[in-house]
């Protein structure tokens, strides 16, 4: 089996699952309970918060646990919009965000907010110039993803943060779901106010995520109730999944230190071998792209059939982001990059983890070549 769909979801580390099972069975108390079992759960929660804060170089009270990336993005965007709507109703984001950012923005438009979607160039990057021109007196929020989930382009977060230094009233949100443990992001240096992370994208479990909220930033909660998580996110904490996520983050960041060069080499080798196939057009920019995402188009061939053909040989890739892969719509990111529909409709994404190897590449490439040949015969 060659699993190349790590941007959709990753395989949890065995140690992470062990942690989950241990906590879920032995320390099952509700952290809000006053008795010993409750206190044990509360301690585990607090230790997780402290360790995550250390790993991200922020303060423990800046870490809010959520049910995942989608909730964190919704909470950040709608929470800030509703909190500061009296200050202004203008929001800036990009044309290539994940739906969990762009859909809340659309919802806010219906509620009377004005949203500007920054364009990207043919390589998938926004420009600081465009951003500067878009900022208005009534801008309250800028939300830009760190690593694009479809093509892997890395947006200039630090530069955006520098620019926004001059606009202290604008809140800066970064969706870092794809970047965690693959592309470093320093939250303080980047002047990031809010940052979204999702456990299952770094070998943790589904059902847990993080919203970093810089001290002093207020937002209107999405979930009302028992006032857990410093009153920002109600609901009994999923302690086992949070402890498991903490372990996954630590292990992933350690793996980054040890294996980032390996991962870069694997990506380079992939690009080299893919480029040698005549019917393949590379969509991922060579520079400023994440070490684990490679997007290419099949010269108009049906990418969905291609994906299924590969799956028959136990090779797993995807057409576009998993969340929208059921629709046969062309890739939103590629369209924004100016790709013609034919190219945008035939896109395939490979997404790696630190565990993928160079040895897998020729095996997969062979299967891919055959699949392309087969598809060409069918379409002819």
């Amino acid at each position, binding site marked *: 089996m060659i699993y190349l769909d790590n941007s959709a979801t990753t*395989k949890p580390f065995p140690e992470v699952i062990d942690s989950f099972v241990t906590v879920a069975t032995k320390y099952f108390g509700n952290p809000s309970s006053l008795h010993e079992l409750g206190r044990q759960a509360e301690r585990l929660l607090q230790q997780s918060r402290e360790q995550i804060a250390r790993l991200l170089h922020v303060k423990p009270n800046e870490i809010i646990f959520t*049910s*995942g990336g989608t909730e964190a993005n919704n909470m950040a965007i709608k929470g800030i919009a509703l909190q500061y709507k009296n200050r202004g109703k203008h929001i800036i984001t990009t044309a290539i965000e994940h739906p969990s950012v762009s859909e809340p923005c659309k919802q806010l438009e219906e509620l009377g907010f004005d949203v500007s979607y920054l364009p990207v160039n043919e390589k998938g990057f926004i420009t600081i110039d465009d951003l500067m021109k878009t900022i208005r007196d009534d801008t309250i929020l800028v939300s830009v993803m760190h690593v694009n989930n479809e093509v892997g382009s890395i947006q200039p977060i630090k530069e955006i943060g520098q620019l926004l230094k001059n606009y202290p009233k604008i809140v800066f949100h970064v969706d870092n779901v794809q970047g965690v443990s693959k592309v470093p992001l320093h939250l303080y240096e980047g002047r990031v106010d809010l940052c979204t992370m999702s456990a299952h994208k770094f070998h943790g479990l589904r059902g847990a995520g993080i919203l970093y909220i810089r001290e002093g930033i207020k937002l209107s909660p999405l979930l009302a109730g028992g006032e857990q998580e410093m009153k920002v996110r109600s609901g*009994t904490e999923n302690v086992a999944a949070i402890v498991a996520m903490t372990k996954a983050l630590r292990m992933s960041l350690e793996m980054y230190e040890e294996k980032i060069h390996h991962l870069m080499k694997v990506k380079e080798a992939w690009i080299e071998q893919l480029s040698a196939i005549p019917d393949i057009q590379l969509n991922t920019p060579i520079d400023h792209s994440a070490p684990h995402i490679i997007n290419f188009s099949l010269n108009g061939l049906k990418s969905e059939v291609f994906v299924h053909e590969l799956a028959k040989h136990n090779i797993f890739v995807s057409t576009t982001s998993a*969340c929208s*892969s059921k629709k046969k719509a062309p890739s939103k990111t590629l369209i924004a990059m100016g790709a013609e529909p034919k190219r945008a409709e035939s896109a395939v994404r490979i997404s790696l983890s630190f565990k993928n190897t160079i040895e897998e590449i020729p095996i997969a490439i062979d299967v891919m070549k055959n699949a392309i040949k087969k598809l060409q015969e069918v379409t002819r």
Partner: protein
Amino acid sequence: MERIYLDHAATSPMHPDVVETMVPFMTEIFGNPSSIHFFGRQSRHAIDVARETVAKSIGAKENEIIFTSGGTEADNLALVGVAMANRQKGKHIITTAIEHHAVLHTCHYLEKQGFEVTYLPVDERGKISLEDFQRALRDDTILVSIMFGNNEVGVLQPIKEIGQMLKEHQAFFHTDAVQAYGLIPIDVNELHIDLLSVSAHKINGPKGVGFLYARETVKLIPRLYGGEQERKRRAGTENVAGIVGMAKAVEIARQTMNEKASMYRSFKEKMLGIFEQEGIPYIVNGDENNSLPHVLNVAFPGTNVESMLVNLDLAGIAASSGSACTAGSIDPSHVLVAMFGKESERIRSSVRFSFGLGNTEEQIEKAAYETVKIVRRLTNK
């Protein structure tokens, strides 16, 4: 020291079979259900099967089940979702004074958004009156949210009667069944319930997962936007292991419901019998004949709830003052205040015992005798 856990209404241990069911969905079948490849399809299939199990358990259709991150999210989605989607029909909502905070605080939020909320009072036994309800119901009422069984005192509300009264009314009927589900049989059609919230970790399932039942005809605006999961009603990659674990817990709950309900009722009798026999002063809060089988809330006159809980904890017994979510605060329980008023001594001397998986008759006996000792010590009798 053997620890005796009598706080199952706060959270419950996972059933070993639930854990076992979940593990393969973390280790092997880890795909994203939205992925079109084999891994994704396997996960998708598991979710479909789980949805069927969950739907069947309340007599619903599969497309009426929305998986959420838990009870709080389900309550928030039901209330805000229905209110926002139906505001052109009216802005009036009816709920009770003794709801869980996931409902109450959401109602406060809706009030700030311009909705008008009636909080029905309860009597000394914790029950609302149908006359009050009838009087509160207006032409512009769009939503009625009344909990099935109360988490602090266990009292059951007249859900069937309310359902009947709302049959011909435009208002949608939501019930927070987080505590009742799994111990009380619920059929949403028989009871005319339009929306119902459930949390897995209260029924020996995992934390971080729950569901909202929303009848096909209910108009609902989502809380989470993004991917098109859960038929566009709840975005976010599905917590497959959690969902599968919950379905297993549902299955077990259905098989063992009657047996557990009668066992927990006998635990209640046992405890109260010992209090009676030992002659300590106590008053049961709520209505013994109309309550959740697993919740027993007792006032011990002359004691203070915090000293009671600390002493019980030292004796290895985990109990609670009320809902776990408010336990951290020193404010008296809003449920007891609604039942007895702010001045009543009972709001400061009541302890909740809640029974569940793993509790035995011996444990209950021991806990009862320990309680007696502590009460005697604290009241110097």
